[in-house]
């Protein structure tokens, strides 16, 4: 599959650990790619480099095979962009803003597609932007990114400020866009959102890429919490040693709490042979895998 985004040794540092350093990333065309990392990890810097707002100190980035700096206009023709902080021209109406962007792009938007998105988001395009709430302004940002039907959507924290119902609509729009052949590159803090939408994720820490994984692989790395209440005293060290991928988190009397990453069958066998009074196996979340990555990454 062709690559929508390729970065090679991409570096833009404001200070040590601030910015991005040696970023090697490949986003396959047609994928929904999540870009994860805490605040200041370098997600927005990467997006700014892709859009040629910033110039790299080293390395390069390409979108659909074209260099983001040398052929900036050609690459931006392919992109729909939603910035992390949506600040719109307050004096315009929504439709005036869209027409302005259409003229700037020199390519008309498909009116049916534009209307479909606006209706799905329940956005009044005749409204003056000044009168819109934060959530509605975010909807305008999403609408202008999707309306030109770009080959690549670059979204920085796209659901910030959206209520849960509109988030669902947005997810449906993204799926529909992707089914039409589009590629999505989105940064997010909301891990459940990334888990639900994305098929690949890249995790960034202190400006460096920690890993790029398929979401399924990441799921398998999930940490689950196993809480046990023993009916009798047991040798805890020996018990934990029987459980592959288990770490003792805490122990109070006969109550123990374990972090478990794999070995479901071995766990069941070990539990069956132990004097268990009660147990609970908390559902795992991507968040824990993500945090685990952060804790364990060098």
């Amino acid at each position, binding site marked *: 599959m062709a690559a929508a985004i390729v970065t090679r040794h991409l570096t833009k540092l404001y200070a040590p650990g601030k910015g991005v350093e040696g970023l090697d990333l490949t986003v396959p065309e047609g994928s929904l790619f999540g870009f994860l990392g805490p605040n200041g990890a370098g997600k927005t810097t990467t997006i*700014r480099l892709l*859009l*040629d*707002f*910033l*110039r790299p100190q080293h390395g390069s980035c390409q979108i659909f095979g074209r260099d983001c700096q040398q052929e*900036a*206009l*050609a690459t*931006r*023709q392919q*992109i729909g*962009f939603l*910035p992390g*902080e949506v*600040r*719109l*021209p307050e*004096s315009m109406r929504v439709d005036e803003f869209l027409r*302005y*962007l259409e*003229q*700037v*792009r*020199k390519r008309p938007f498909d009116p049916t597609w534009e209307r479909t998105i606006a209706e799905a988001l329940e956005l009044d395009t005749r409204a003056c932007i000044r009168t819109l709430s934060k959530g509605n302004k975010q909807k305008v940002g999403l609408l*202008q990114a999707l309306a030109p039907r770009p080959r690549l959507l670059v979204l920085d924290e796209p659901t910030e400020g959206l209520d849960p119902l509109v988030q669902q609509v947005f997810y449906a729009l993204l799926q529909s866009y992707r089914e039409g052949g589009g590629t999505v590159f989105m940064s997010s803090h909301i891990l459940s959102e990334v888990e639900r939408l994305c098929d690949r994720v890249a995790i960034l820490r202190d400006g460096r890429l920690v890993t790029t994984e398929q979401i399924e692989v990441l799921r398998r790395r999930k940490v689950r919490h196993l809480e046990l209440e023993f009916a009798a005293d047991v040798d805890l060290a020996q018990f934990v040693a029987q459980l592959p991928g288990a770490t003792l988190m805490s122990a109070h009397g006969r109550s123990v709490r374990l972090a478990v990453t794999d070995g479901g069958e071995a766990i069941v066998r070990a539990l069956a042979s132990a004097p268990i009074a009660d147990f609970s196996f908390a559902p795992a979340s991507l968040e824990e895998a993500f945090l685990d990555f952060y804790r364990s990454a060098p």
Partner: protein
Amino acid sequence: MSLAVFRRSLFEARWILGGLGLALAGFSALLTAIFPSFRAQAALVERLLPSFVRMLLTAAPIDRPEGFLSWAFQHPVWLALALAWPIAAAGSAIAGEIERGTLAWVLATPVSRTGYFSARALAIVLGEALVVGAGAAAFGIGSWRLGDLPAGGGRGILLAAVEAWLLFVAIGSICLAVSALTREAGRVYAFGIGFSAASQILSLLAQMWAPARAIVGISLFAYFRPFDALAGHAVRATSFCVPLGVSVVALLAGWQAFKRRALAI
């Protein structure tokens, strides 16, 4: 150049431009209307003025239409109204858009920084032509209606207006270059007002105090001599060439700064 950005720049400023044009035309018409009564009292007015102010009138006698119009072109209110557009437009262009958070919408589309910068620069140049044109037209119509056309006639008024326009475009170009370097429109406004005021004060000072003449060349206003055109004399080439040259250099510098600038938008 991005035509869409250019059109939008002028469309968004239509009320400001219209208001400034009307205000300048109204003020210019008012000045020409008072000239006949002013001329009747000119000798008395001149006697009442302190000697150092009287020195300003030696080059352009105010009891003649060309002298009076030359003074009117340099009246502080006239200058303030004419300078409002280039300073405001330059400030709201790059620095203002970064401050308002709206620059990313345009630069994320296939518009180059050169296209954006040139569109904003052209909006300053053409917008200022409208404002100065309105003021000069009011001078011309008012003088003609009252039968007080300067010796240089309508051509003289037109040439003086072109001199004024070039001067204000030069100041707007410098402000746009400053705008390309900063993130806050307020800094551009402060710079524009301060620079213009300092330049004009130096020019006036040089006419009254000989030691200041050694450095008056650094003042853009020193090259603004509307009396020559209004009196029908040959206009000095520096009156056109210096502001034009300053505009070109400032725009090139601003364009390069904006092209190379890291934009955290």
